[in-house]
């Protein structure tokens, strides 16, 4: 049973459609991550749900109630913002208590509930401070506490970890799911960090240019992206997109990638003039010639955390990324350009249409 239903929602600014005929549902207690590059319309979508702006067309239904025409104060939503949006003239305590104040709840209960949620977010020692005396991490925890305290059934989180430093962001990425599970709420979470999306989302809606291009579990999106654009948005370094052609006379058992013939297991999917999507982790690098391996030059080794990342250049100039956990790639510690051999593992590969990028 869906808890939040967005039906054919549209919003235009100056004839520019920012949200285009958008429909999706979110189940009760589900976390839906809305992910997309900047300018895709993520924040506008969230503001439409919050009621700060009104849609040109379409409906928003929460728990069976159509809230499209309600003012924000009557929607009973919790929301946390990218810039925290704390009230700078009120203490953290009053910030957190604000949703209870509007409901005219007795001071003793306010006290008890503020301390409960502040303890949960580990900011109980700073609730008497003004926002300007808080670190960015504490500010965001205060904003989250405020969005949770009135026990709303739906919480909107607008890229809440954008403005906190890397350490706090990582901490919160681990902590948030447990927190949201403990409060039993449905969540719409906006982010432009694919790792956050994969870590936090039960499902991810990929928003590009005001449209949802794919809505699925993180696993499905990573392993079966609907098009090459989405494939490139998930993964660091991003997926290799290589033009391929079939090798004449091989009946589809071989394809030509970067001027090299490679065997294609299963033989399915490839056709002349399509694009091969190959994740960097499916490219292995060695220093000895192997049957079916592609001669390449290693241009640079740029470790990413504890993974090795190599930029390879094929004989025809095509650039290909390879990545592997540390210690799994020979000679990665050396500096400068070197000759090597790349073996492409095509068992998890994707094929996309050259023109529209759609999955084949």
């Amino acid at each position, binding site marked *: 049973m869906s808890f939040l239903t967005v039906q054919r929602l549209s919003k235009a600014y100056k004839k520019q459609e920012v949200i285009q005929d958008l429909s999706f549902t979110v189940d009760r207690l589900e976390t839906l991550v809305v992910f997309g590059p900047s300018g895709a319309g993520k924040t506008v979508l969230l503001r439409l749900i919050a009621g*700060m702006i009104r849609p040109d067309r379409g409906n928003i239904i929460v728990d069976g109630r159509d809230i499209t025409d309600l*003012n924000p104060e009557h929607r*009973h939503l*919790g929301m946390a913002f990218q810039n925290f*949006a704390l009230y700078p*003239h009120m203490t953290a305590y009053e910030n957190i208590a604000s*949703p209870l*104040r509007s409901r005219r709840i007795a001071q003793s209960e306010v006290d008890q509930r503020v301390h409960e949620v502040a303890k949960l977010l580990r900011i109980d020692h700073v609730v008497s401070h003004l926002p300007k005396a808080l670190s*960015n991490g504490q500010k965001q925890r205060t904003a989250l506490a405020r969005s949770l305290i*009135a026990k709303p059934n739906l919480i909107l989180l607008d890229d809440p970890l954008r403005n906190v430093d890397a350490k706090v962001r990582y901490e919160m990425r681990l902590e948030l799911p447990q927190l949201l599970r403990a409060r039993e709420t449905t969540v719409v979470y906006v982010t432009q960090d694919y790792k956050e999306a994969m870590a936090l989302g039960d499902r991810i809606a990929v928003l590009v240019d005001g449209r949802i291009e794919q809505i699925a579990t993180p696993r499905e999106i990573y392993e079966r992206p609907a098009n090459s654009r989405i494939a490139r948005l998930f993964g660091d370094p991003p997926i290799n997109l290589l033009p391929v052609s079939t090798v004449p006379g091989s009946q589809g058992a071989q394809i030509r990638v970067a001027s090299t013939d490679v065997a294609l297991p299963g033989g399915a999917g490839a056709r002349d003039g399509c694009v091969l999507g190959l994740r960097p982790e499916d490219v292995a690098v060695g220093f000895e010639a192997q049957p079916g391996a592609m001669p390449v030059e290693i241009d640079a080794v740029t470790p990413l955390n504890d993974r090795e990342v190599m930029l390879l250049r094929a004989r025809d100039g095509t650039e290909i990324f390879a990545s592997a956990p540390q210690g799994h790639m020979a000679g990665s510690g050396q500096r400068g350009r070197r000759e090597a051999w790349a073996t492409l593992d095509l068992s998890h590969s994707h094929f996309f249409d050259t023109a529209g990028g759609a999955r084949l």
Partner: protein
Amino acid sequence: MKSASFSPVRGILMLIVAVFFLFPLIWIVLMSFETNGDILRSPPRLFFSPTLHNYVSLILGKLGGGVGTMTVDYMRNMMNSVILSVCSVVVSLILGVPAAYAFARFKFRGGEDMAFTLLSFRFAPPLLVLLPLLRYFQVIGLYDTYFGLVWVYQLITLPLVLWIVRGYFEDVSEDIELAYRLDGHSWLATFFKIAIPLARPGIAAAALLAFIYAWNNFIFALILGSSSVQPVTVGALAFITASGIEYGQIAAALVLSVIPTLVLAIFTQRYLVEGLSLGAIKG
């Protein structure tokens, strides 16, 4: 390059600037404690026997001139100035702050034009509107009333309040207001509990400026009122008499008339400084 070192050249230059700006003020203060005779002495002397005579006669309303005494109710002028300025600022705030909020938050048709029209009142020379106004005021009975003057003063103070406060409202993040409304508060509560407190430094600055402009206004009161409602600026004219100019008393009158604005400026300074430190709103 950052440097906190204090070079002698810089010190001398700063001293010159300070003397240039402060000299007239110090001179006026000194004059207010001198007799007319000391003031007119040539060459002027730096040392003289100070007298409170000028202040005493101002407060008592009896002017001791060269020949005989005359009655000038300067204290009444002071009172008028206070009433006119305070009322003008209060009216401007009541009208201007909500209007500024509307201009800052809502984009409505003709909004920019309206805001600009209001500002353009500041460009027109006052005399342009004064003579017709004088006729109207006499006809409808607003001539020589506080109400009439406060109304006309809005031409000066309202655009000021509107434009300054609007800028401050625009700086308050809309997200903060949205957050407050999502907490369940009405838009009216949001206006009073969030928008106003966050724009307070701007409101204080606008009020202070409006007060100073109203206080220093001369021409409106000169033409649209008689001595019963005229402020200090017009009142000081009384010291230019047929038998001579009472420099000492003019100086004392000026010193007295500066005191309220000075006190107000010092008082509001706290809010102005607070405004700077609230810059961490977006933090």
